């Protein structure tokens, strides 16, 4: 069922569904009581996203109990990429509601742009996915107000997709096997790998590097999305990086592998991966941070407001009392 599209179409991306787990809220409570106290200073927080393991589950940005640890990749599941977050916790509900949202999200967008400009995001491709988390933790009631934003820099134009194909129509079973092995060994070498280069016949997988990047190689990325026609959110900032690197003189066409992996009966299966031919718009010329999509997450009713999580029944009050200041 190869899908050929004669005409270029707007490439559309599936956003993240935030998935802070109960252990994260517990960890935040402890951080607030033991370390942050009344400080409202922004602080780093470690998230991660699973690589499209199940087609029937939305792309998730997860936070667990290790979100505040020293090691960004601690307890990272094997098939997941780290994502760097900034947590801005407000001490009062009023402060939470009156934040300068535009300024807050611009911090993250600026960081992504700086990391692309400096080449840091090329060396550590997990920096292409950075997020903002605003919180107000009502520790008396165990109510957590929160709002995620997943900023995406804009290219000079919206990237267009020429074709979308299942990976099996592009690579042979042997090549797919080699691809899975290559991606695995890359992950073993560096847990902060989120994008990579697939060379030639698909047999070799290498880290992204400016001297290896060209329009003749396929650029792969670990895709949290499982949809047959759309890539996940991390590709957005990756395309900006590619545009800045490959399209300085004008628009170029690149081949993108949306790499997804799940385990079936004990063996890796990447057959739900897809391959896109994407038209990269011309690079930005100015060094300033370009316009960006703010990417505020909608609430379950698709409204642009924060969410709330009520854990009054599941938090362990005696434990929190032990650690209360």
């Amino acid at each position, binding site marked *: 069922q190869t899908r050929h599209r004669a005409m270029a179409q*707007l*490439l559309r*991306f*599936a956003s993240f*569904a*935030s*998935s802070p*787990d*109960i*252990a994260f809220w*517990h960890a935040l409570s402890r951080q607030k009581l033991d370390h942050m106290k009344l400080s409202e200073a922004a602080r780093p927080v470690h998230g991660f996203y*699973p690589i499209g393991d*199940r*087609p*029937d*589950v*939305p792309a*998730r940005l*997860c936070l667990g*109990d290790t979100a505040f640890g020293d090691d960004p990749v*601690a*307890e*990272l*599941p*094997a098939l997941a990429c780290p994502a760097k977050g900034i947590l801005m916790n407000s001490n009062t*509900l009023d402060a939470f509601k009156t934040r300068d*949202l*535009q300024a807050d999200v611009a911090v993250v967008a600026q960081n992504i742009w700086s990391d692309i400009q400096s080449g840091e995001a090329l060396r550590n491709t997990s920096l292409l996915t950075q997020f903002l988390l605003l919180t107000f933790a009502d520790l*008396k*009631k165990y*109510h957590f*107000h929160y709002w995620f934003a997943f900023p995406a820099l804009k290219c000079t134009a*919206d*990237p267009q997709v020429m074709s979308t194909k299942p990976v099996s129509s592009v690579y042979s079973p042997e090549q797919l096997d080699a691809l899975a092995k290559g991606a695995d060994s890359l992950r073993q070498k560096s847990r902060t790998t989120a994008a990579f280069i697939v060379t030639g016949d698909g047999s070799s997988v290498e880290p992204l590097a400016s001297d290896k990047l060209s329009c003749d190689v396929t650029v792969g990325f670990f895709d949290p999305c499982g*949809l047959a026609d*759309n890539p996940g959110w991390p590709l*957005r900032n990756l395309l900006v990086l590619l545009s800045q690197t490959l399209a300085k003189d004008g628009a170029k066409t690149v081949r993108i592998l949306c790499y997804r992996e799940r*385990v079936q*009966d*004990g063996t890796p299966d990447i057959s739900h991966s897809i391959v896109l031919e994407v038209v990269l718009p011309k690079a930005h010329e100015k060094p300033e941070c370009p316009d960006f*999509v703010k*990417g*505020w997450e909608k*609430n*379950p009713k698709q*409204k642009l*407001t924060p969410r*709330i*999580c*009520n*854990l*009054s*029944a*599941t*938090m*362990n*009050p*005696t*434990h*929190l009392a032990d650690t209360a200041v």
Partner: protein
Amino acid sequence: LALDQHGTASKVSTFQKTGKLTPEEFVIAGDFLVENFPSWSWGSGLPEKHRSHLPPDKQFLQTRNVPCYPRSNRAIAENELGEDEGGWVETGLAGDDGDNMDAVAEIEVGMGAATIGGDAAAAASSGSGDADDGDADGDDDDFDDVESLDDYDYDGSAVVEDDDAAALPAAEEGAATVGNRMYDMTITYDVHYSTPRVWLFGYDANHQPLKKDEWREDFSEEHVDKTVTYEAHPHLGYSCPSIHPCRHAQAMLRLVQMIVGDTDGSVDVKFYMMIFLKFIQEIIPNIEYDYTAWAM
């Protein structure tokens, strides 16, 4: 991957006679699970809750966001949830703590002293106490005081709205991804019973914690009132449903004997967790965690 059966006596573990695991064997079986099933990883949990008989970085096994496929009555329930007035999906058990804990206490009593160890009964009663403490200020009794942020005007919607045709609308992500509950699943080592113990924390399709007793729908009817209790997690400091391990050793022994059959062979202890998870699947049939590398 196949169960390797081999007869060398030195490899025979106590678990083949008792169904129980030593902490060392728990680590061996857990390592094997993590190496072969990438959705599983080791967790360390709260430092002050570390158990010295396990390595600090291998205190328990965890897998997150495990889909739970809808049961017949669930689709309706979640549609109603989406229509909450005020826009907030109200979550948690506020106002029902006491009742819930009473229910657990009744379960415990119903199970009787013969099947529940003293530690479980103690945990249940302390859980009840926690809930009372939590309600002491009376705040939680008033469900209506969960603030709604729907009405807040963020200085004009332009601040948060993106004019972004390249974002796929949620509605287009397909019905397949809508409506599934998810569970965080952990497996701890229970010292009293010398077996693994399963803990589950559930979320609705919007990743909001399940309300009240909703988790009960996801456990098999014959087990939910007998072996599932609501207790404090030993490493993570919150409370959630757990499958009580009082019958685990027996069940594991039976399964191991079934696998070995009449032969003189043995089952390598590294397969313990996979056999265990197969057994647990009967209790939580709709929660699709990863363990199936072989057919029994």
